Structure formats: structure tokens, C-alpha cells
């Protein structure tokens, strides 16, 4: 996997998630960032910082990205959400437009 095909998402605690660019594009916000060359420094580096999103939530979001890709390709499984995460997850989902 070459560097161009992945992006690095960094949580508020500094934890790094390296995921496929294709998965990150599930988020409308990241899609805009990654597909408009020159407009965001993130595009060049392939690194996006989320100072407001905790590691737990960011991990869940990365899981969702991959779940969504599977769902769209016909594998319709259930996506589990822990009740204690819902509110925080929603705020992140709202921000990421996903």
C-alpha cells in the first residue's frame, strides 16, 4: 500500500489512525479535503488532525467508514454502537458530515 492511498487521522490525544483513502472518503468533509488539491495542507500531507475528537470516538468512526464500504458493496451487517458513545459520536459525525 503506497502512501498516496492512505491517510492519517490524528485524535485529540495524538493517537494516529492510518486508513485507506477510499474509506476516509465516506466522510463528506474528508472527501472535500482530499479531493480539492491545493486548498488544504491536509491534501498534500495526507494527515488530518482532529483536536476535538477523542481516540475512542475516532476509532469508532474509522470502523464505520469500513462498515459503510462493505454495506455499499452488498454486505449488509449491523453496525454496533455502544449507548455511552452515541452523543459524542453524533457530534463527530455531524462535523465529519457522515
Amino acid at each position, binding site marked *: 500500500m503506497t502512501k498516496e492511498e492512505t491517510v492519517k487521522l490524528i485524535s485529540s490525544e495524538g493517537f494516529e489512525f492510518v486508513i485507506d483513502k477510499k474509506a476516509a472518503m465516506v466522510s463528506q468533509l474528508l472527501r472535500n479535503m482530499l479531493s480539492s488539491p491545493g486548498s488544504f495542507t491536509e491534501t498534500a500531507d495526507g494527515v488530518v488532525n482532529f483536536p476535538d475528537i477523542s481516540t475512542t470516538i475516532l476509532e469508532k*468512526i474509522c470502523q*464505520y467508514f469500513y462498515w*459503510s464500504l462493505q*454495506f*455499499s458493496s*452488498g454486505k*449488509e451487517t449491523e*453496525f454496533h*454502537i455502544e*449507548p455511552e458513545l*452515541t*452523543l459524542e*459520536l*453524533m*457530534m463527530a*459525525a*455531524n462535523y*465529519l458530515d*457522515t
Partner: protein
Amino acid sequence: MGGVCSRKRGNQVNEEGVRVGVNRRYCKNGSSKWLLGTPFFRTTSGCQPEGVSCPTLMELCIHKICQDIDKYISFSVLPRDISQQIFDELVRSHCLNDVSLEAFRECALEDICLGDYPGVNDSWIDAISSQGSSLLSVDLSGSDVTDSGLALLKSCSNLQALAFNYCDHISESGLRHLSGLANLSSLSFKRSDAVTADSMRAFSSLVNLHELDLERCSGIHGGFAHLKGLKKLKTLNIRYCKCITDSDMEALSEFTNLRELQVSCSSITDAGVAYLKGLQNLILLNLEGCQLSASCLDSISALVALSYLNLSRCGLSDHGFDKLSGLQNLKVLNLAFNNITDACLIHLKGLSNLETLNLDSCRIGDDGLANLAGLLLLKNLELSDTEVRSTGLRFLSGLLNLESINLSFTLVTDSGLKKLSGLSSLKSLNLDARQITDVGLAALTSLTGLSHLDLFGAQITDSGTQYLRCFKNLQSLEICGGGLTDAGVKNIKDLTSLTLLNLSQNCSLTDKTLELLSGLTALVSLNVSNSRITNGGLQHLKPLKNMRSLTLESCKVTATEIRKLQSTALPNLVSFRPE
């Protein structure tokens, strides 16, 4: 059997439907619901995944919350638009109650649409009013809210829209709590005894009111005298207020900004209509069911901005219709159920902007239709129960914009139908008449855009059904003339766009028919009453997951078996017969 055979239902003009195109809503979220009354068919999907489209994370979270709503104590940490989405979904899925509502306290919600929601009473209002100045619209129609509940809303000073339709526990003195809500632009109190000539004083300070709905209020005669200051009023609905008389129209003559006025089924006469002459901005006037005569047409002729006029069931004769020829902006004209003849239609000849004309049950014949030949923008033409024959249809063959024609209970025969074959915009065709047969249907195969075809009483046989294959876009189809067998249904089984299918009164249909129809998964309503269908055939309906209404009266089918089907396979079935 009852409903199976009654045909004339739903022919009344729906004012709301007609007003599509007049821009009405100013509020943001889903407040239009209360304008439509109680929708029989609720939209289902919501945040449920539908088809292959993947649910968003937001939708998944909202769905999850609705499942375990009692685990949440407060949503106030969430941004307002997110809590609004949760709230709306809880309402839609009927998971909200007075306890879960507490979690929304001080969430700065903008819209609280609880019209016809079960169980709403005063105990809900405190949490609702805690939204404070954020709250823009509230619909508590059909609730048990009383005056004290109403009082709590006083603090929501930015309210723009309020609806308390059918709220029987609000009294006259409760209305005074509204008088401070000066930002109100829309207010609705359908069928309310609280609104009286006296209590309407409370509305006099609502100077930003654009829209007032007092439909079916029985005590409002004389009340408009208090509302003279409401110069911005644009829309007024006082349909079915028998108490409204000519003197009320005199008071209304001051509302010169009025765009839409609905006074149907009130007690006004020609003299009342005369007071309206000065309402030069009026675009919509609905006088259906008022007892009027020729002289009212003279008054109406002054309203040159009118684009919508409903004069059905007004007891009018041909006299006076020459006055209407000046209303060049008219797009919709409803003259149904009047004593008018071909002589009246001469005066409609020049109304070249007409898009909808309703002549249901008028004494119109072929000669009259000649006057319509030049109305090239005509989209909808209602000629049900008239004396129109086949020869008259030639006048319609040039109306290429026609999308809907109703020729039910006319004298039109098969031989005339080829005159319609070039009307390629046609989407809806009603040929519910006994003398129409397979031969007539054969002449219409070029109408491939048809989405609604009504052949209820026509004598269609199995051989005629082959022509239905041309109508691939059909969404509704009725063939109830008695001539169909299972063999004919074979030609219907591939019309996969069908949502409504009525094959009742075809006594030879068997369980085989249900088997053939099992692929029509879009079906929402199915009627095969008066046939040989048995309990054994019901299993074939299992794939029809969208089914909401199933009618199998006078068959060998029991309610118990339908209920079983409902609980195991048809979750959306809300209405069935036998029950």
C-alpha cells in the same frame, strides 16, 4: 362491500392540492404537515436503511437512541440541529412520551410538531416551553392541552407558527395568552369553540400574522371587526364556518393584502361577495357550496389577479358568465355541480392561461367542448357525469399539454377514444363507463406515459388486457367490470410500477391471481373483492411488503388469516377487509 363500489369519493377539489405552486412555507423544518390534515399514508422510510443506500453514521446513531430512549437523561449537550433530528425521529416512530420528552428540556429546539400525536396534554408543555426563544413553531393539534398549557407558551416570544386544531379543551379565555406573541405569522385553530367573536380580540395585537386558519369554527361571526390592524394577513381559511355571513365579508374588505381566501360552505350570498371587490391582490378565492347567483360573477370580475377560482356547487346557471372572460390570469377554474350548459363555455374560450377546468356533473355536451379547443395550456380536464359523447373528443385532440382527463359516466364510446391517442402528455385517464370495451382500450396503446388508468365499470375482458402491456409506467389501475379471469391477470403481473390495483367484482378470479401478482412488490393497495380467492391464496401476498391496504370482501377469506399474514409478513398493512 360498501366502499368497494362507491365511486364518487375523492372527486371534490382539494384546495391544498391545487395551491401547490403558491409558495407558502417560511419556517424551516417539517411544519407543512398540519396543512395537509392527517395524512393517511405516512412516509415510512425515515432513517431506516432503504434499498442499497447506506445509512449515515448520524442516522445509525439516531436510530440507536430511539431504541434505548429511556437511557438518556438529557440531550442539551448536543447542538440544536442534532437534538432536533432526534426529536423528529422519536415523533415519527411514535417513541416519544412525556418521560422521554424531559431529555429535550432546554435543547433550543425550533420545531415541535406533535399534531395528532397520542397522549399530549398539559404535562408536556413545560418541557416544550423550556425551548424558550429558540422555539419557532409548535403544532399541538388534536391534543388535550388546556388554557393552562397554553399559558406556558407565553414565554416563547419568537414563535412564528402555532397550530391548535381540534383541541377541545382550550376555552375562550385561554386565547388571551397568545396576545403577546407578536412574531406569530401563522396561526391555526381549526374546529375550535374557543375562537369566538369576543375571544378573537386576543388576535388583534398579532400584527405580523400572515396566515390564519379558522376552518370549522362555529362562533366567529362578527370577530373580524377586531382584526382590522392585521394588515399583513395574506391567507385566510374560514371554510365550513356556517356562521360566516355577508357582514363578515364587509369586515374582510379591509384586508387588502389578502392573497388567498377560502369561504366555502359558509352562509355568504352575492351581497357578501360584492364586499370583496377591492381585494385586488387576491389570487385564490374558494366559494364552493355558497348559494350564489349571476350577480356574484360581476363582483368576481373585478378581482383581476385571481388565478384560482372555485365556484363548484354554488347553484349557478349560464347567466353572468360573460363577466369572467376578463380574468386572464385564471389557471384553475372549478365550476362543478352547477346548472351550466354549453352556453356558459363560450365565455371561457378566451381564458388562455387555464390549466385546470372542472365541469363535473354540469350539463355540458359536445358543442360546448368546441370552446375548449383553444385552451392550449390545459393540463387537467374533468368531464365526469356530463353529456359529452365521442364526437366531442375531437376538440380535445389538439390539447397536447393535457395530463389528466376524466370521462367517467359520460356517453363516450370506443369509437371516440382514438381522438385521445395523440395526447402524449397524458398521465391520468378515467374511462369508468360501461360502454367502453377492449376495442376502446386498443386505440390508446400510444399513451405510454399513463400512470393512472381507471376502467372501473368498463367491459374489459382477458383479451383486452394485452393492451395494458403498453402502459409500463402504470401506478394505479382499476378494472372491475366483471370480465377478467386469471388469464387476463397474466398481462398485469409485469406492471411493476403499480402501487394501487383494484380488480374487484371479477368473480372468476382465483388464488392463481394472487400468485400472479406476487411480483408486484410496489403495491400499496390491493382490492380483489367478490372473487373466488380463498385463505389458501393469501400466502402469495407475503412478498408485498409495502402493502398498506388489502380488501378481499365477499371472498372465501377470513379476518383471522389476514391478521396472521399481517403479523408474519406484512408489517405495513394498516387497513384490511374483512376485519
